[in-house]
């Protein structure tokens, strides 16, 4: 937790170098992605949320912190991919936030986890209207489509997204995540095929139980 609070301060200063140094130290000392994503980056952002709630910072500060955190994720992924010997396979997963949803850091982490497990990924970022999502999915035909939302009002988008994406001819697996999934039950918005994940740990377990998800030492 201390590391997360320290990182939160650096993110709020927009201090990319010092923030990266902190993450890189964790990485080099052997922390895995799950730990770095869940216990350091997510906790730092949650702490930033706490600072806003206690009237210490403003939404403008959150913007700067977000931008820096986004940079850290990209930088971390770059290093991770370079040294990782996990073999890639041809399974495809697509990632997006439902319409109007701007909170994309969480689903970016999820997409990176998939990629680290050798999946081909396409990350569409925040606010992807359903029509675009369907078009992109139809062209690329991913086996898995992951959706994220953070604002309660956006839960109402879930039903149409899940229904219409699950109905696509190649029958993709829809996976839902986001901070509220941990707190409330959203199953009624999905079908019996829809999967809801409450944390990256659950994503990781799922990935590791996939036929191609096993780690191997052969690079491709």
């Amino acid at each position: 937790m201390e590391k997360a609070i320290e990182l939160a301060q650096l993110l709020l200063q927009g201090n990319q170098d010092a923030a990266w140094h902190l993450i890189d130290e964790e990485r080099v000392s052997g922390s895995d992605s799950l730990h770095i994503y869940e216990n350091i980056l997510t906790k730092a952002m949650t702490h930033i949320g706490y600072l806003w709630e206690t009237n210490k910072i403003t939404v403008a500060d959150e913007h700067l912190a977000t931008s820096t955190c986004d940079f850290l994720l990209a930088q971390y992924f770059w290093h991770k991919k370079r040294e990782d010997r996990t073999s890639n396979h041809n399974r495809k997963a697509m990632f997006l936030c439902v319409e109007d949803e701007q909170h994309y850091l969480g689903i970016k982490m999820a997409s990176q986890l998939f990629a680290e497990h050798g999946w081909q990924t396409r990350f569409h970022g925040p606010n992807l209207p359903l029509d675009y999502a369907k078009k992109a999915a139809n062209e690329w035909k991913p086996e898995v489509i992951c959706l994220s939302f953070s604002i309660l009002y956006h839960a109402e988008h879930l039903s149409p997204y899940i229904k219409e994406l699950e109905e696509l001819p190649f029958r993709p697996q829809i996976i839902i995540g986001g901070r509220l999934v941990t707190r409330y039950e959203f199953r009624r918005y999905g079908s019996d095929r829809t999967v809801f994940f409450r944390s990256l740990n659950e994503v990781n377990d799922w990935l590791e139980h996939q036929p191609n998800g096993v780690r191997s030492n052969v690079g491709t």
Partner: protein
Amino acid sequence: MSEHKFLPQPYFLINKEFDILEFSDKSADVFDFSTNFLDLTDWESQGKLKNILGNSESRPEGEIIMKTKESPYALFDISVKWNQDECHVICIEKDHRLAELERIVEKHRVRLAETNLELLEKKEQIEKTLNEIRNLSCPFIRLTTRAALVPLFGNLDHELILQNGTRILEMSQDGSYLEILFDFNGVGELTNEGVEAFIALVKELQLMGLAPSIIGIKPAHAIYLNSAASVPDVPFLNSLSKAFKKSVY
């Protein structure tokens, strides 16, 4: 009703239970009517609001998410001032002032996304070119109906053989070749893995009834070839003309 009605911003007068006692016309424009001020606030801002309103220690101002006619989560700056049991609250919408910042942040985000893609694309391009170079580094040249020349260029590493071995095997079967001459004149560095892979290829050719030989070995190469785990049982000839003579007769 007092002058407050004409204030140019949303204004509320509330009591300790957050009941709305008075409000400005502007408030009615912006918010749907409610009897309690808490109901105008997003559920995840209510704790913060209570703090700003109820805690004399805290600053009497701050950002709050409010439900307006336009949006269920609009960002407001509120300022509060207690006068005995009544509190004056002014709410100023902030979103338009944040728009510029949001635009800049979004630009950063897109650029970051593109940068990664750019890097990735470059890497893929380079890998493709490298593959092409490797293909060109092992041409299979027909000398006579019985002999072919395979000049190697560049470094003899594992990848070079991995990428070209199958093609060489296939082409050597395509005709009535007996001899395959590997020309090392263009070879720079050798790696142990490269040499092992090369020897494996030579052995495979031998298994298929062909007679491989090696020409143009330099002293630096010889050390590698001789120290290899299994030295190939093939003639080492120092020039193409010698090899050619041998193969013609």
